C-alpha cells in the first residue's frame, strides 16, 4: 500500500510539473479567488481539527498548503 501511495504521489507531482505550462489569465480567475477554495477554507475549523488529530494520532505533518496563487492582489 505504501509503494502504491508513493507511486500515486509521484504521478501527481509529475502532473503538477506538466501543468506548470498551463496559464490561467488574471481575468479568468474569478472562481479561483473564491474563499471556499482557500486552503484551509476556514482557519478556525482547521485549527481545531488539527488539534484533535495531532494530539490523538501518532503522526503529523504536511497539512498546510501554499494556497491561492491567483494573483488577486
Amino acid at each position, binding site marked *: *500500500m*505504501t509503494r502504491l*501511495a*508513493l507511486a*500515486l*504521489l509521484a504521478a*501527481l*507531482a509529475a*502532473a*503538477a510539473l506538466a*501543468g*506548470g505550462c*498551463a*496559464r*490561467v489569465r*488574471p481575468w*479568468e*480567475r474569478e*472562481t*479561483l*479567488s*473564491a*474563499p*471556499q*477554495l*482557500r*486552503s*484551509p*477554507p*476556514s*482557519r*478556525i*475549523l482547521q*485549527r*481545531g*481539527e*488539527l*488539534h*484533535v*488529530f*495531532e*494530539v*490523538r*494520532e*501518532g*503522526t*503529523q*505533518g*504536511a*497539512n*498546510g*498548503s*501554499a*494556497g*491561492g*496563487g*491567483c*494573483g*488577486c*492582489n
Partner: protein
Amino acid sequence: MQLSAACLAVLPAAALGLAATASAQPAEEETVAEAAVRVYTDDDRVTVITPSVSARFAASPRISIEVDALADVISAASVDVTSQASPYAFDDLRVEGGTTATWAATPRTSLGASLIASQENDYRSLHLGFGLRTEVARRNGVIDLAYRAAIDEVGRRGDPAFARPRRAHRLAGTYTQVLDRNGYLDLVLDTEVVSGYQASPYRFVPIFDDAGALLYNLPEETPERRAGVAALARVRRAVGPTFVHADYRLYGDDWGVVSHTGSLRVAARISPRVTAIAQLRAYLQSAAVFHEERYVAIAGEAPAWRTRDRALGRMRSFTAGLGCEVAPRTAGGLRVVAAVAATRFVWLDYALQDGRDAILATLGLTVPF
C-alpha cells in the same frame, strides 16, 4: 500529565500553519479579527474547552502582523490517564500565545517569521519559525518553504527536579499549481527530526516473565531521535456552486510508523450568504517497531525500548462532520462559522481500551476591521 505532551503536539502545526497561512494566502483579508470556542468531549471522560482569539493587521504597506492566543481548559478522568498518570481525575490549563510577521519583499515574494510560546504545569515550549513564499510561472504556481525549530522542556507534576529537553527541526515545502480556471493542486513535503525526551514521564510499562507473571513496572523509554516524512497531495476544485477539497497524506518515520490519511471536504454555497460544509476523513496507522502489547524480559533483562502509548500502536480513526458559514446581511463583513464533527478512534493494540467516540464542536467569528 498524560495529555501534556499530546496537547503540545499541536504546536508544530500551529507554528507551520501560522507561517504558511500568513505568507501564502493572497485572498485573505488584510485586517481581520477572529474569535472561536472549541469544545472537545469524548466517552472516555475527557473534555477540553479551547477559547481562542487572533488578529491580523497591516503594520505598514509591506508588513503584516498576526497575533493570537488560546487556552486549553482540560478536565479528564480517562482510563488512560488514571492508569498511567494518576489514580485521580485532573484539571489542567495550557496557555499559548504567538505572533507572526510577514514582509512583502517584492510583489511576488514574501518572508515570514513566527514565534509561539506555550506553558502548562509540566510542559514549556518555544517555537520559532521562518517562511518564504514566492509566486512563479506568471502567478500560476506558488512555492512555500517553512522552517520551524522547537525548544521544549518536559516536566513532571509534583517533581520539580524532573526536566527533560526535547528539540525539533521541521522543514516543509509546498508547491501549489493552478490547474485551470476552477482548481488548484497542492503538493506538500514535510520533514521533521525530533530529539530528546519523547516518552511520557507518567507512563510505566509492566514487564512480564516467560510464564506471564508480572515482574515489575519500568518507566516508559523510547528512542531519543525520531525522523519522519509526510507527503500530501490535495486537489481543490469548484464544481458549479460546490467546492471540493480532496487530499491524501502519506507519513513514514524511522520508528516504523506509517500512516495513510484521506479526507474529503465539500463546501456548497446554498445562498450568497450561507455556505454548508461537509467533511469525511479516514486515518490508518501501523505500529512503531518497538511497540508491543506485552513486554517480556529476556534472560531477566527488560527491553530497552518500551511504551504504553496507544498512539504508537496500530490505530484507525474515522471522522464525519457538518458545518456552515454565514455572513449576515447587516453585519458589515462579519462571518459566523459553526461546525460539529464526530470521530471514532480505534486502537488495535491497547489493552485498556479499544476505542473512543469523540465530538468536536466549533463556533467562530471573523470580523474585518
